[in-house]
């Protein structure tokens, strides 16, 4: 493979992995608090459409990202009210959010189909972007790519060095104990759910404003679900989320490059396109085989409703 191809594939892999990182890290915080929100796909879709619409109307992609974040949080708030205040089943509510979000996004986004946005230019980091092979791929990127890295480092610090992170882990492990020693479990869980929604919204915004950039019904294409799978795959550890997201990005990009390469291989494009989904399944199987690892690492109260008795 020649150097130019390597650089462009690496560049594309990083871009493809970025929304997954942002969304999955948000979900990781969400799940560390013991709340399972399966609605990521819906929150991403809403984030994507809101960001696209606002960017289109205002011409400012950053307003768009803010709108995407807001839309994701609004969806997450809905989920929070149902599961945390009204104690509805988390699985059912998450599924509902996924279906509803995709549907609502399709409805809201109808007028924006077949509209194009200006491509947002990447931000070039001086000097290191001149490094051979990787410089152009890693350091001449969209701002949100750098954001995803900052998010990763920030989260590492938050979870393992900060008191708030300690409280979050405690709430996810044993909410009744956390309540008994005086932590506001429900409020902390709301914050975690909102953070998950915000990141899902930003991830969606990245797709529609920076990545494609356009809006089409179904454009999230399962990335919300893949992000959920990534968190399991990563056994709730941020570093593994990063690695996993880039692996998935790599799979997506590889199949696109094969399709676009003009290599006359006799393999139908549709079946190639299903590769990332198969890859998700394979990885899930590989990581889930050892039930002990999952049990040791998953937040103990994940998915279980909790209500303090007043």
């Amino acid at each position, binding site marked *: 493979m020649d150097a130019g191809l390597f650089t462009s594939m690496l560049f594309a892999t990083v871009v493809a992995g970025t929304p997954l990182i942002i969304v999955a890290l948000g979900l990781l915080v969400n799940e560390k608090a013991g709340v399972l929100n399966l609605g990521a796909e819906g929150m991403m879709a809403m984030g994507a459409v809101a960001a696209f619409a606002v960017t289109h109307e205002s011409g400012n992609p950053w307003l768009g990202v803010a709108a995407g974040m807001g839309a994701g949080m609004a969806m997450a708030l809905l989920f929070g009210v149902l599961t945390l205040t009204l104690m509805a089943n988390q699985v059912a509510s998450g599924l509902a959010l996924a279906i509803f979000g995709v549907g609502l996004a399709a409805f809201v986004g109808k007028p924006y189909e077949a509209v194009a946005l200006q491509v947002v230019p990447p931000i070039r980091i001086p000097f290191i972007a001149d490094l051979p092979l990787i410089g152009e791929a890693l350091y001449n990127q969209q701002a949100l790519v750098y954001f995803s890295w900052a998010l990763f480092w920030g989260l590492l610090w938050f979870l393992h060095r900060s008191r708030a992170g300690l409280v979050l882990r405690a709430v996810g492990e044993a909410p009744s104990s956390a309540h008994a020693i005086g932590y506001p479990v429900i409020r902390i869980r709301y914050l975690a759910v909102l953070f998950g929604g915000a990141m899902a919204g930003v991830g969606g915004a990245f797709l529609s404003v920076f990545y494609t950039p356009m809006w089409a019904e179904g454009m999230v294409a399962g990335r919300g679900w893949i992000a*959920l799978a990534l968190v399991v795959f990563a056994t709730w550890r941020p570093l593994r989320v990063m690695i996993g997201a880039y692996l998935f990005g790599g799979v997506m990009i590889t199949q696109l490059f094969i399709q676009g390469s003009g290599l006359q291989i006799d393999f139908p494009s*549709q079946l190639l396109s299903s590769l990332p989904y198969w890859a998700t399944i394979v990885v899930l199987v590989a990581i889930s085989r050892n039930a002990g690892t999952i049990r040791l690492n998953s937040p103990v109260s994940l998915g279980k409703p909790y209500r303090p008795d007043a």
Partner: protein
Amino acid sequence: MLELEARAEPSRLMSFLSPLLAVVLMIAGGMLVFAALGKDPVEGFRIFFLNPVKDLYGLSELLLKATPLMLCAIGLAIGFRANVWNIGAEGQFMLGAVAATGVALHFDGSESALLLPAMIVAGALGGAAWAAIPALLRTRFNANEILVSLMLVYVANLFVSWLVFGPWKDPDGFNFPQTKMFGEAALMPVVLENTRLHLGFPIAIAVLVAGYAFMNRSYAGFRMRVAGEAPDAARYAGFSAHRMIWVGLLLGGAAAGLAGMGEVAGPMGQLTDKVGSGYGFAAIIVAFVGRLNAFGILLASLLMALLYIGGEQAQQYLNLPSSISMVFQGMLLFFLLGADVFINYRLRLRHRAAQGH
């Protein structure tokens, strides 16, 4: 300040009322949406909810739409009862359609009366086979069935698309992504004159009845209910968790596959890349709104079908995107999930504690 207080016992009245409350709230919410979009809410209500059922043909269309919904939903409900979260009915639906189409195309031109039964069997088997993948991966490798079954929806969609763009494309179809039309012997007979309502509807009703008997009367159904309510109790009683996963997923897959078969051999008459029209996902809502029981699913599927047709009417007469029906469906489920809290809790005014008199 208002607060929720646990009831001593779940309220039977509320478990009956909360779906009705959810419907009322959905309609109210829907009228607000119409108003917000600058449409007359009353006119919107009429077009959305009343227009579709104003004559016999409208009713038959409603039943036609409800057929795949109730089939998919009753299959899902069996699994959901046991906490087997198959959310890939959409994919199983498509694979059922593919398998039935395979039979129809292979025996193209056959007049045999056995062709249709063979397609029905193929449809059910196709759906079940697709659902067997998450079942196998869950029982052998502990892989989460939610994510696996969902991923397989995307795979199924791409697979159908490959078939109708590739090997199964109708050579005389002007390059449209679709197979050739099925022969007469491969189509579901119409059961009501001058409508499109076909044999699939009575089959779906029969499946509902069978589903009821299974869930509420059989020992196997009892075991699944126990597993869903209290997994440790199921283990204590010696009910095999693996068997429940298999039964839940295979029955769900077979029912969804049957529904897919009913679509290609019914109103569509061929396989196209649009075969997956969201019934499999909508059925999740139907199953929950129907409270995972057969009679509830019957009513919920009719309601959801009404929302679908209402959406089409809104597109036609109100110039709104038909995806508005998805908004209504989502609202319905959210309102239900919210209203259900009152089964186990009641609202009461919280007064300041600790004043002794």
